[in-house]
């Protein structure tokens, strides 16, 4: 029973996903009911996670396939929060497709459960199942608009996703072959005794896993799908992909690399690998983002660049004693800060494009007059993405760069700050459009209550983390101690 109990947050989401689909058969097209049920599911999941903390139910489940620890709890809350904001942001948007609204919400809940599992599973088979659960739900959601672009995006995402899953599986096979076990703890024990004979196989596994999961994290050179999928998918799903799916990718990478491959023998190798990918991701993402004219594509490339920032944390293994926790907590903090920030930006985009029907940056001209609050919120989020205080993005940037400095990665920090100079240009260009250019029309744009609420929550989060970062810092450091 304790195992089921520990699976509670995910189970609740899946149960509500089922209820929503069934209820839709009985009471068709009851829009507010669908929204209420999905929000209730998320709330139930959060409450269950809270009681897990309160009852101190940390521990393994299902013979070590699953674990409830500070790390998985951190992500449970993060993914539930992301799902709630995405649902709020979807309410007005889903009117574009009259049919299948129930499936839309059900798939969001199911994929959220998948993401939570990705952070909690400690067995290669279970990890793989969670990976597929998340992926399959997202393939459908991306294609949900059923127009040309959306279908193309769905197909692209599916094909590349399948390929990356295969590569991941290949990497897992190496680990299994070496250790004879799929359990991360068992693998870690074997890796700890690895010698130069097994080194090649380990490096192979490491590279394959990074390549397969690099797809989920959306880092260069596994980012090819990002711009098209981001542009074609329904915007709330783009937002969801850019924060949820990405965070899930990082969660599983941290779980596998920091738990199973946490031996000084090999950790230096993958830290160097991630440092390299980080530098390339930041640079490529930022440089291409400079030239974008579509705001969703721009944020797509920006998310590649941001993933480069997160990877700095993975590379930041303490040079002195191989300590992992420093960079790991940086990644966690950054992921949460980025979730609020990027969701906020996408919510503003949804609200604006619901009215203007355009995602071109040029059509944001004069938004400060047409939609003052949305423009202000979007500006705040873009400032946070740039990493200017007093926002979440600034603290996150300083925090992760600080970890990198302590790991003797000054070169990477220099690459990082130079990149943030580049990013100023394309983020603030949008701000400039909104505040300086004359509006194309005088029509006022107001966000509906749900979008307004979501925007308020995201903006408040960005400012709160920027000014009073310690609650999140504390949570992130506690979660990172799992690998300490």
């Amino acid at each position: 029973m304790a195992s089921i109990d520990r699976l509670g947050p995910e189970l609740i989401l899946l149960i509500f996903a089922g209820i929503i689909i069934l209820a839709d058969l009985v009471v068709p097209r009851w829009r507010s009911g669908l929204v209420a049920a999905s929000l209730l599911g998320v709330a139930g999941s959060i409450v269950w996670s809270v009681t897990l903390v309160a009852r101190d139910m940390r521990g393994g489940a299902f013979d070590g396939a699953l674990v409830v620890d500070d790390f998985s709890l951190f992500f449970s809350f993060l993914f539930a929060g992301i799902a709630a904001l995405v649902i709020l942001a979807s309410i007005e948007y889903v009117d574009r497709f009259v049919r299948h609204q129930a499936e839309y919400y059900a798939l969001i809940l199911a994929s959220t459960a998948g993401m939570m599992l990705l952070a909690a599973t400690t067995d290669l088979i279970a990890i793989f199942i969670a990976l597929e659960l998340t992926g399959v739900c997202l393939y459908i959601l991306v294609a949900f608009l059923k127009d040309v672009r959306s279908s193309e995006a769905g197909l692209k995402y599916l094909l590349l996703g399948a390929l990356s899953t295969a590569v991941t599986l290949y990497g897992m096979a190496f680990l299994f072959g070496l250790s004879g076990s799929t359990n991360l703890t068992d693998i870690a024990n074997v890796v700890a005794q690895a010698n130069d004979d097994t080194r090649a196989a380990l490096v192979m596994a490491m590279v394959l896993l990074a390549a397969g999961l690099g797809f989920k994290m959306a880092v260069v050179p596994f980012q090819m799908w990002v711009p098209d999928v981001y542009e074609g998918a329904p915007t709330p799903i783009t937002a969801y992909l850019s924060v949820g799916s990405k965070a899930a990718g990082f969660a599983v990478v941290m779980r596998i690399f920091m738990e199973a491959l946490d031996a000084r023998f090999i950790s230096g190798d993958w830290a160097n690998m991630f440092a390299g990918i980080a530098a390339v991701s930041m640079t490529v993402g930022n440089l291409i983002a400079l030239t974008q004219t579509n705001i969703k594509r721009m944020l797509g490339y920006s998310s590649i660049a941001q993933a480069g920032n997160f990877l700095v944390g993975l590379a930041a293994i303490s040079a002195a004693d191989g300590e992992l926790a420093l960079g790991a907590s940086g990644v966690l903090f950054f992921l949460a800060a980025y979730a609020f920030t990027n969701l906020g930006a996408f919510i503003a985009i949804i609200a604006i494009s619901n009215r203007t029907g355009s995602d071109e940056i040029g059509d944001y001209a004069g938004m400060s007059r047409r939609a003052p609050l949305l423009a202000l919120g979007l500006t705040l989020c873009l400032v946070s993405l740039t990493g200017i205080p007093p926002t979440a993005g600034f603290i996150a940037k300083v925090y992760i760069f600080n970890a990198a400095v302590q790991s003797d990665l000054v070169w990477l920090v220099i690459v990082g700050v130079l990149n943030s100079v580049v990013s100023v240009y394309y983020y603030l260009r949008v701000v400039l459009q909104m505040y300086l250019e004359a509006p194309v029309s005088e029509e006022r744009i107001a966000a509906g209550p749900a979008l307004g609420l979501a925007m308020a929550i995201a903006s408040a989060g960005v400012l709160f983390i920027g000014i009073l970062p310690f609650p999140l810092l504390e949570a992130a450091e506690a979660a990172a101690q799992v690998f300490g």
Partner: protein
Amino acid sequence: MLSFIVFFPLLGAAVIALLPLERERHAKWAAAATATVVLAAALGLFVAFDRDETGFQFVERHTWVSADIASFDIQYLLGVDGLSLAMVVLTALLGLVAVLISWNIELRPKEYFAWLLVLEASLLGVFTALDFLLFFIFWEIEMVPMYFLISIWGTGRKVYSAWKYVLFTFVGSSSMLVGLLVLAFAAGSFDIIELGRMDIREALLPTQVIFFLLLFGFAIKLPVFPLHTWLPDAHTDAPTAVSVMLAGVLLKMGGYGMLRISLTILPDVARDASLWLAAFGVVNIIYGALVTLVQTDLKRLIAYSSISHMGYVLLGISALGQVGLTGAGMQMFTHGLITGLLFVLVGLVYDRAHTRQIGELSGLAHKMPMIAVVMVIAGLASLGLPSLAGFVSEVTVFLGTFQKHEALTVLGVIGIVLTAGYILWMIQRVFLGERLPRWEGLSDATAWWERVPLVVMVAVIVLVGVYPAILADIIETGVQPIAERLV
């Protein structure tokens, strides 16, 4: 008290931002009230400041992010010594001036005054923060209001200039961020007071490199040739009040940073770099003055003269001694006042004549005697006439530097001659000379909001010129500990 001074403008900005659109005209009153309260508080600080003490006063220390929960600890640490106090008073004074001379702003006044107050708050934060990261936060925030103020309310190539300003500043602050993280890791603290007592020799990077990374950020702000190219564009295209803040206060962030951070924390490297600093200082003085001589636009002329005058600050800093540093601090204060006043005057002329081309203007003194008289006073102060503020600070700089770098100081004095040249020539062409029928319709500064800043600023310039001790005393208490570390 310091928290009040730093955050009260933010409160004012928030109130203004919440004003309903139809009451937009009240924004200026709210802004003026806010700026007046801040100035009063700053003057209160000036009076209450204990001039016999050399350390930091009015210190407020709270843990912001504690080392218990995070891998670093950041403090909310504010405090002033004599040097920062002078800068706080200057900021508060020019903050009020900036609000008053913007009285006629018609374009989106609500946003304008809100940003102006945010700018003031961030500047006050820079001058009072004693935690390096907090200092950096205020340093970065300052960029945002400037970006909006120049790009929306500016003139000419305002968007280009705003971008240039932001990119230069951001490059500088990025370099500073790397330096400060490496430094703080080596020292285990962001506390500037503590860092100022340590002797840091070992870090991930050589201390010379850290010194350079930090100095690079400050040098862009000051600005030091050849990093100065943002300045003429930003000054020229910014609205008058923003030029006042830019020349009057923002440039001082660079000098202040060098004194507070570079010299205090890495005195050994500073000693080695002294000659370089002096050389760049002299280049700034001469190059700035020469370029000023050929300017045809009034505002650009004052802008380039700022580069030249900031050279004195750098020269004073390069002396690395009590006298030179006092001179640098005083020069920062007096240049803020004098150049602030010059920009106000140029703004007043431009409001009336709608041109800033020196070649087109002539004989304005007949139609605007008050502006002309104040311009002459400000001009004479700028070229260093005894009994006005500029003289004291420049003489102190030269006195301090001469013992250390004789030849370079002598070269630097040429700058005074050149200053006299461009200032007097400008006054002669614009205010004296032939009366042109085209300018017969112009009026003098008549409104109260034009006259009050002029009178107040002239009064302070004369006061500091006649009784320099009022300023020198407090700055001396501030630079004394810095100078002692450099011996």
